[in-house]
């Protein structure tokens, strides 16, 4: 995932002329229902970019809640592992996921040299 993030940043920077910018912050939106542990992503990113053009950039992560929709009564709810992800209102299985699958670079804060 870290590699994918760095590749995405490289691709973005190519359009901006990488040599003329300094990236200050990479603002991510990471859903709770993904295979990404935010602190691990930050740590591996910091290690991977040491000495590179992204060395001074900081990662911020906005966690997007895992939210489902009960297919019986249409109520939104926060699925919990302890409850088998079922809706607390009708005890229905998790069918529709409203949010929590996000793996996004929301924005990049940078300065031109």
């Amino acid at each position: 995932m870290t590699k994918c993030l760095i590749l995405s940043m490289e691709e973005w920077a190519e359009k901006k002329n990488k040599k003329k910018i300094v990236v200050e912050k990479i603002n991510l939106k990471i859903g709770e229902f993904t295979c990404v542990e935010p602190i691990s992503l930050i740590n591996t990113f910091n290690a991977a970019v040491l000495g590179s053009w992204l060395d001074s950039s900081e990662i911020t992560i906005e966690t997007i809640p895992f939210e489902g929709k009960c297919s019986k009564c249409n109520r939104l709810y926060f699925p919990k592992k302890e409850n088998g992800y079922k809706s607390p209102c009708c005890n229905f299985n998790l069918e529709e996921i409203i949010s929590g699958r996000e793996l996004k670079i929301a924005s990049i804060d940078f300065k031109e040299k």
Partner: protein
Amino acid sequence: MHLPISDKIELNILHQNSHQAEKNKVKFNNYNLLCLNIMSSPGAGKTRLLEITLEDLSKKFHSAVLEGDMTTNLDAARLEKLNIPVVPITTGRACHLDANMVCGGLKLLEKKINPDLLDILLVENVGNLVCPAEFEIGEHFKVALLSITEGEDKPLKYPIMFREADLILITKVDLLPHLNFDINELKSNIASTNPKADVIEISSITKSGFDLWQDWIRKKILKFKNN
């Protein structure tokens, strides 16, 4: 230095992989080749499943395998004995196959056989219940294996894998009489995580469930070919 600028890009971190996966899928479609992504934890029985499946399947359909493994070609060597085209993909330190690796594997496969002659490509992913679930490879269907020795709670502990799967094969069910294992609890946990998935109980020892699994594949191939 100038004032800071905020570029709001809202870009999927995995977009490069997704883009390559789409390109792979276009290739598979052009070859009229159904692709299954076979995933599980290490030791759930993926390779043995493929050995038994291909013995029968390759009599009816032209089949090939991309065999993902971190460090060895041991599994690929087992499947090559079935006289079908097998391309090993050694991922090195990576714990999953990504779309680029599968693209490379497909190029090597093209050197072995004209994929136009194939009906089905089985991609055995690296044994791991986490990362393979997030990385599309261009497959048409995802198949997840879960052996009963892993415990009833795994669909809840690794929900992305079991949520993403189109078919879940519960493997090693011949061991049921010897274990304190509640298969109904497992099925309930699967249904909680992914109510839409097909579920088949299977044993590579007794061969129970293989008729259902083979039938599932056969229907998917025929439907794919007729579309």
